[in-house]
């Protein structure tokens, strides 16, 4: 396990002297967050990373470390990402985080979001960033993992507003939602606040990590003090423009998009 401030140079992340190639998953989130923080002149993110090829040992080590140490962390925003979904460990971490004063703002995506929903504690989070399939999982009150989302709920793009409404109605959503897809939706319990659909590049859906970069950008924007809904709208636009400038295809890798985040942010923030 390693913890420390994260930096980005070329195609690699650096943390405590360790070099990590930027690929899908948490490295993509971290790289996008670093790139955004640098563009804004903010502090770089601090990360807790562990290796886990799916057996869960690494995740449990990190869970335990967070339970033991997180209450001493002074940070305004926590973004939880790829961790083996485990309701018990999720709850232990959440309880430890709730001891922190002042209370940090919590964001969840990926495996930790699955556990947050399954635990019934989704409302403890300010923001979830599901893709359309994960939104269907949030909307299905009986599904403990997206793997079990019932067929009649499984997403159709036209049904996204209904799925959002269902997720809120069953208390399986965070306060805000940023739903990633061919159109990005920014929502809260009172309804949809914004729909962002340009620039449009269908290839983004096929590229591993483009959802992770969106989560990284929005987390960094929120950390800079931006309102959550404004940060979600800005992040959506920036992620799209980054893909547009990179001229991605379904075969592109996420690092190609990350290189264009600074230019994309400039475009969106100037609008």
């Amino acid at each position, binding site marked *: 396990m390693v913890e420390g401030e994260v930096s980005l140079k070329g195609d690699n992340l650096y943390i405590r002297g360790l070099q990590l190639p930027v690929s899908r998953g948490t490295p993509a989130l971290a790289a996008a967050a670093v790139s955004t923080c640098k563009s804004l002149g903010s502090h770089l993110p601090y990360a807790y990373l562990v290796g886990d090829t799916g057996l869960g040992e690494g995740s449990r080590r990190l869970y335990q470390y967070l339970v033991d140490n997180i209450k001493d962390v002074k940070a305004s925003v926590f973004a939880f990402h790829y961790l*083996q979904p485990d309701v018990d460990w999720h709850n232990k971490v959440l309880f430890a985080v709730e001891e922190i004063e002042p209370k940090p703002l919590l964001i969840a995506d990926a495996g930790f979001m699955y556990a947050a929903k399954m635990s019934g504690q989704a409302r403890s989070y300010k923001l979830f960033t599901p893709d359309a399939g994960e939104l269907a999982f949030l909307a299905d009150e009986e*599904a403990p993992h997206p793997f079990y989302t019932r067929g009649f709920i499984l997403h159709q793009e036209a049904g996204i507003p209904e799925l959002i409404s269902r997720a809120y109605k069953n208390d399986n959503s965070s306060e805000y939602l940023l739903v990633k897809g061919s159109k990005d939706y920014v929502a809260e319990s009172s309804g949809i606040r914004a729909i962002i659909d340009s620039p449009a590049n269908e290839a983004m859906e096929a590229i591993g990590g483009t959802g992770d970069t969106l989560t990284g950008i929005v987390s960094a924007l929120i950390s800079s003090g931006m309102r959550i809904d404004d940060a979600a709208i800005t992040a959506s636009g920036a992620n799209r423009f980054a893909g547009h400038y990179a001229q991605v295809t379904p075969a592109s890798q996420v690092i190609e998009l990350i290189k264009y985040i600074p230019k994309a942010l400039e475009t969106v923030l100037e609008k």
Partner: protein
Amino acid sequence: MHWFSKKKNLRHKAPGQKGTDRGILVFENTSEVIRAENELKSRGWKVRVMGPPPEIRTGCDLVIEFPLIEELNILRSLEEVGLTPLQVVPVSCPLLQPVDLFHCKNFGDYLMVRAANMKLTIDKNRLIIVNVSGGGCPDVTYLAAELVGKRLDAAPQPRNIGHTLCTYALQLAYEEIRRLCSQ
């Protein structure tokens, strides 16, 4: 252009799940379930993976549903390959059924198939896996590293190297894309 491929009628509560003629095998982890399923199906047993009942769910779980009458023979088969379930219990309530609805998207030179939260994309002309996206379990990055850049028929099957429900969903996408490419 994109279309839905509905493999079969999807019901949340699978039929015939009443009484005690079916049981479930509960293993230490999803990885063992995947291995057990591979082994039992290769030996011709009519088993299927399902979601565990609520009282034993932890977060990323699969169980194997099997005909109770074959319990001894099935356990013997598993023992031969070093697999021992933690529990063997009769099915007492409807079990969650894995997703088997696919969403396919045609990008011209590329084809993407989504199963649940996992997406697999191939170069249709060269039949090379070009991307893996979606998911939230920690083995997704590892699976992508092992699959991307490889020909579809040369890449390892996700279920042979992964350990989670995201692995299983990717396996479904993989099987569907192979089926489509063989047409």
